[in-house]
């Protein structure tokens, strides 16, 4: 009897040790939480396209129908089981929802988050709960600059790239500009965006002066009559704005009849998300970015992956993909690549630690650009960043962009180990433009 007990104990111990060492156990499914705005003012322009992009890529991965070289099924062979969750409701709710996802539902990986507020609030919680989490869109550079992160990755460039590229575009395309102002939302995203743009303008166009009547309305304010008047009365020739979500579209609707876009040059660093949605009502002559090489700015990029993404999205949802669709799709794709790479190295289904190792410093060809996880110790992506100018293409009967200029990642983002502010203030030393 005693020997039986010893045998059982030894067997259990061996099983536990094997499980812990475990690279290569089989796993049929990977559970994933996908979080984006599914309600509220950010849902239509951002959350829903983001969800659609993620859903489309997940389905293609599960069926093995992505273009080569990504046409293997699943994450290291395991089918993705995705739950789509709403990011609306504020940071406190997101932290609670994240804890619920990880601790109660036990998901393997979380992908998502659009708002910088969500990411800033979640970053320490992700570290605490030690679960692989991919920040798909949120822009504030602080997430990976304020502390090293082990379990989180961001698969697109942060907001510094948008605003440095925007200032360079103004220098290159409108060197005659002598003054500028800004209208940005009053939280981390808008404050950081203006700071980076203004600091860069000070370096690349030192003769251009910033206005002292900057506008920082609160997010989702909805009405901008007074702000539009303030901008119209300001002598500044250029208006910088990082508006996104319904605020961006509402601002355009309110400013258009008042001639703001005819009297000023207006730069929207996230304007690409409004282009397809507003159609002919999208004013001509706007300088727009798309938070990287996505959406309307890469419509003509002639690669197999990009053509597949545009056509599949159009066939499925009846519209062309905007930036958020690409950005969420890219996050899912990056995660597949990391799982596959880790699985191949492990000779079977990988552990989370092995996936994290594979993710760190990953470089891959995404749907519309090359992505290098080269900042934040290999956890923060860098990509090129384009801007262009809107016009109405009468032949195609749709909004298009012209004078598109792509700025390389090494030109618009700081080197690893240096914060965005330090890098810009030092004159963007080492930038390769």
């Amino acid at each position, binding site marked *: 009897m005693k020997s039986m007990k010893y045998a059982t104990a030894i067997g259990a111990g061996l099983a536990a040790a094997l499980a812990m060492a475990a690279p290569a156990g089989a796993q049929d499914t990977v559970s994933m939480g996908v979080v984006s705005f599914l309600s509220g003012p950010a849902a239509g322009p951002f959350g829903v396209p983001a969800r659609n992009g993620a859903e489309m890529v997940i389905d293609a991965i599960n069926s093995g129908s992505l273009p080569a070289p990504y046409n293997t099924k699943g994450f290291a062979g395991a089918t993705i089981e995705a739950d789509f969750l709403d990011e609306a409701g504020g940071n406190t709710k997101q932290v609670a929802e994240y804890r619920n996802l990880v601790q109660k539902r036990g998901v393997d990986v979380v992908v998502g988050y659009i708002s910088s507020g969500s990411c800033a609030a979640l970053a320490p919680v992700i570290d605490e709960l030690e679960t692989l989490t991919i920040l798909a869109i949120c822009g504030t550079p602080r997430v990976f600059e304020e502390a090293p992160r082990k379990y989180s990755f961001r698969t697109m460039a942060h907001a510094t790239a948008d605003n440095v590229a925007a200032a360079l575009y103004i220098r290159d395309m409108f060197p005659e500009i002598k003054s500028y102002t800004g209208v940005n939302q009053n939280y981390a995203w808008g404050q950081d965006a203006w700071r980076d743009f203004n600091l860069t303008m000070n370096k690349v166009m030192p003769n251009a002066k910033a206005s002292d009547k900057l506008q920082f309305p609160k997010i989702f304010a909805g009405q901008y009559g007074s702000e539009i*008047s303030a901008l119209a009365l300001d002598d500044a020739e250029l208006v910088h704005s990082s508006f996104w979500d319904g605020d961006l579209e509402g601002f355009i609707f309110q400013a258009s009849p008042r001639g703001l876009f005819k009297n000023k040059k207006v730069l929207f660093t996230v304007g690409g998300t409004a282009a397809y949605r507003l159609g002919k009502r999208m004013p001509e002559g706007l300088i727009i970015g798309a938070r990287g090489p996505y959406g309307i700015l890469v419509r003509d990029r002639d690669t197999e992956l990009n053509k597949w993404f545009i056509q599949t999205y159009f066939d499925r949802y009846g519209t062309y993909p905007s930036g958020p669709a690409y950005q969420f799709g890219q996050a899912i794709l990056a995660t597949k690549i990391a799982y596959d790479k880790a699985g191949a190295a492990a000779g079977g289904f990988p552990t989370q630690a092995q996936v994290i190792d594979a993710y760190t410093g990953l470089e891959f060809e995404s749907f519309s650009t090359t992505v290098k996880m080269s900042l934040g110790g290999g956890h923060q992506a860098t990509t090129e960043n384009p801007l262009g100018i809107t016009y109405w293409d009468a032949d195609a009967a749709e909004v298009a962009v012209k004078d598109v200029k792509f700025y390389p990642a090494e030109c618009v983002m700081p080197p690893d180990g240096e914060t965005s502010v330090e890098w810009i203030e030092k004159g963007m030393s080492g930038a390769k433009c």
Partner: protein
Amino acid sequence: MNLALTILVEGLGYASYLFIVSLGLTIIFGVLKILNVAHGAFYAWGAYFCAFLIGEFSAMGVSDLGTMIAIPIAALVVGIVLGSAIERTIIRNLYGRDEVLIVLATFGLFLVLEDVILLLFGVDPYFAFQPTYAMPGVQIGGIYQDGYKLSMIALSLVVGIISWVVLNRTHWGKLVAAIIFDSDLAVAMGINVRRVFYVVFVAGAVLGALGGAYIAPTISVAPGFGVEVIVLSFAVVVIGGMGSIAGAAIGALMVGMLRAYAVLQWPEIELFVVYAVMAAVLIFRPEGLFAPAKARKI
């Protein structure tokens, strides 16, 4: 001079829609003693239904200016149908109840109505820009102001005058005044108080919906945008005094003008200024600047 004119126009524009919404809130409180947090839902429903109708009319070939007919239709339909349903099923069970219970019940109602919007209209914002693009802009103070905003100022004037006339120069106004003075005595005098309550609640709902319907063409009509207006409307009626039409007008003007001044001259204080004034009023004159005098019962 240009700056002063711009502050005046922007302040009046912002005050005008706030006044229309706050007027509905304040007359409901003044007569029914119901602090209706669900008033923001009437605003949101008015905006959604109006944006939906404008889209439909536009698709049917109605001219951009002609689509404005959607505004009164949306305000009346939402105000009468939704207002009636809510008064008959929920509000009439709250008459005379504790204020905390009323606030909680109407807040719950607000959340339900917001979710029904999501269910019916979806999460995608609605655009109903046609009327704003159809109205020519006017140069005032060196900059272009849109004609639509000026029409909103005119509408709020008309609404204010009609409300004043109805309450001060008609039989109905006398009934309402009697109920405000003493509802028990009004019942004793043979006034059908429940009927007056119903009419006043529906009128307030129509005003809330009208505010939303008129603002719809200038914004991206998206889920959740009724919250902002209810907070501002409470600020307006707290400043002006609960239950006072003049108070709602002055409160809306103060909020509109202060906000316009802050945005144009001192943007850093824009988020703070409205609530600073509200706090000051609550400290020094808690009943509001124009609260109606109350009869002392012996």
